[in-house]
């Protein structure tokens, strides 16, 4: 019996993780199912798109332009060692479109919108507004979760495209204007090395990240317990788990796509 207790004790965290993973999947599935059932609640979807996409734009732009500029600067010092300065443009473009664009955008959106989602839904949960929705025969998954997941999946690629572009512009500014790399060569190398597939694969990643961050954040909010403190914990956990999931899935997505 003691033996049994030991295994039970040791195994509980794993079982807990599995349970949580299963609940996230179930929430996602029911959101997916509710997305195809009327009423479609477009109003909610647009509202969430504004919250997740439009309002995240400034922070994503700043992140993208800085990372593009830093990339140009850092790779310039590396490439200068063997006279490959002309490759800076291609490096910036490839890194931005393949990795930095989608990942940084997803991280910023997680920080800005993911935490908001968890806090919002969590507050509604602890204030028993979700129960009220049930009482009004409004499915809370359709009303709260589905619009956020859809908004995340739609807006993340758009933000990523903007981020890619602005990042390359930042790299061009630093490389071509400040460091004195010939701007024609800079652009020619980008055209030579960059494939449309690089951009598209980055966008596929962005869709996945959007899905992950919105589902995880909604889940954390949806199952919040413990009053105001619980709401705070839910927001924090939503950001942490989303971020970690994004990085882990990024590895697998990269391995599959490139």
């Amino acid at each position, binding site marked *: 019996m003691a033996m049994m207790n030991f295994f039970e004790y040791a195994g509980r965290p794993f079982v807990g993780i599995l349970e949580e993973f299963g609940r996230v999947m179930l929430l996602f599935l029911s959101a997916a199912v509710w997305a195809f059932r009327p009423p479609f609640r477009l109003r909610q979807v647009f*509202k969430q798109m*504004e919250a997740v996409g439009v309002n995240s734009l400034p922070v994503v732009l700043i992140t993208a332009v800085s990372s593009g500029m830093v990339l140009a600067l850092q790779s310039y010092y590396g490439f200068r060692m063997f006279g490959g300065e002309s490759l800076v443009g291609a490096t910036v473009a490839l890194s931005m479109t393949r990795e930095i664009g989608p990942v940084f955008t997803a991280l910023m959106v997680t920080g800005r919108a993911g935490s908001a989602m968890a806090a919002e839904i969590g507050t509604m949960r602890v204030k028993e507004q979700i129960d009220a929705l049930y009482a009004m025969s409004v499915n809370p998954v359709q009303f709260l979760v589905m619009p956020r997941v859809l908004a995340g999946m739609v807006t993340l690629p758009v933000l990523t495209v903007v981020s890619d*572009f602005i990042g390359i512009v930042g790299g061009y500014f630093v490389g071509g204007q400040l460091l004195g790399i010939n701007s024609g060569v800079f652009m020619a190398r980008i055209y030579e090395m960059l*494939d*449309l597939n690089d*951009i598209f694969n980055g966008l596929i990643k962005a869709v996945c990240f959007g899905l992950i961050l919105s589902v995880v954040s909604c889940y954390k909010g949806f199952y919040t317990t413990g009053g105001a403190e619980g709401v705070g914990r839910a927001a924090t956990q939503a950001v942490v788990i989303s971020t970690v999931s994004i990085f882990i899935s990024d590895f697998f997505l990269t391995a599959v796509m490139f």
Partner: protein
Amino acid sequence: MTKLTVEAKVGVFVVMGIVILGYMAMKVGKLSLMREKGYDVEVFFDSVSGLAPDVPVEIAGVEVGRVRDISLVDGMARVVLRIKPGVKIKKDAKAVIRTRGILGDKYITLGKGSPSAPDIKPGQRLWRTEPAMDLDALMGTLQDVAADIKSLSSSLTGVLGGAEGKATLKAIFNNFKEMVQTLNNTVQKNRDNIDVIVANLTDFSKTLKELGGVNVKDIQKIIENLSQASDRLGTVMEGMNRIVSRVNAGKGNIGRLLNEEEAIDNLNAALASLREISEKINQGQGTIGKLVNEEETAEKINTALTGINDYLQKQETFRTYVDYRGEYLFEHEWAKSYFTLRIQPKEDKYYLFQVVDDPAGKEKVTRIRREVDGQIVEEERVELEDELKFSAQIAKRYYNLGLRGGFFESTGGVAIDYYLLDDRLTFSLEAFDFDWEDNPHLKFIANFSPIHHIYLTAGYDDFINDEGQESFFLGAGIQFADEDIKTLITNVPIPTH
């Protein structure tokens, strides 16, 4: 200012994303999701190590397509190239795998091919390839070479190093020294002879150069003088020898020696001769004198040598071809044979002499009278007789086009030749036998040489003739250049008795 609605904000946001994506897609411009337009060409390589799909295919550095597919067929790497539409590739263009940049990116470059070759059709195969420069293979070869050098140097060390080797070397050097000494002695002993030889040589080159411009008698005289002088020198030397030996032997003394008239006479004569010779040499008289004193002589020898050189160089471009060919004329069912000597002093010019055995060269008309039903009927019978005909032509060539003129089968004529495939294929049109009554004899000939020395010939003979003489013909020929003949003759086994 009214506040934007949520929908408008989201709309602007999404449109902005789509516009930027569209702009980047246009700029990057390689919509590889779509199947690229163009046509496929196959190439087989022994190894495509490092080659990846979608790498560029270039002609003269311009991208004309991409590698679409790489697969293994019968142990060879089959590479499918997708060539852009409108790009023409010659069938004999060579496909080479090249490496670019320090990172060693592989790409394929196609040669331009020969201008006369046809364009390749979609799906066809390019046959001429050159494998990628394999760094490993190169290193392997270098290693082999290094090993060879090492074994060579070690065997050299074995031969030359050690006591035995040193002794051998010493012996070799000693032998060499002896040889040089012997040579020296020989030369000194035969100095007179050598002088004479040199004199003769100078004389010869002079005669060669100034044929008739030099007084040969003078030279003869000089040579006579010289030989007389050297004869006398010989006697003098004998005398001196005798004197010295006597002095050495202690016989007599110097006083007696001086009083001896014969000795003084001899000595005087010797000195006189010596002075005479050296004076002559100094004044530039005689052949040796001239040789020593006059730069002109040296120049003359130089010019003579240059002349010989020029002549030899001319000989090098000078070629002679012997050619025999037979033609079978289908219409007449007879064969015509040609024996040709072609003398080609320069690449673009030759003279052609030809003997033609024409079985229908001459018309022999015989009249036969016979009685038919009491009347005398005169019949004419025309027989064609074998005749030898001669051709002599001058030909001049401009790149692929040759023009000939002169005698064609004992009549006047002209011809145009067109050379293809490194002269292995020639088309000729000959026109000869111009007279007032008939059309000229036109002959179209195509020669193809599949291997050296042998060629096939076909054509259409006398095709604007109005007497029904036109005929297709087919034949073969054999041709040798002068070098071949030389080789042939020297290699023929000679009976030993």
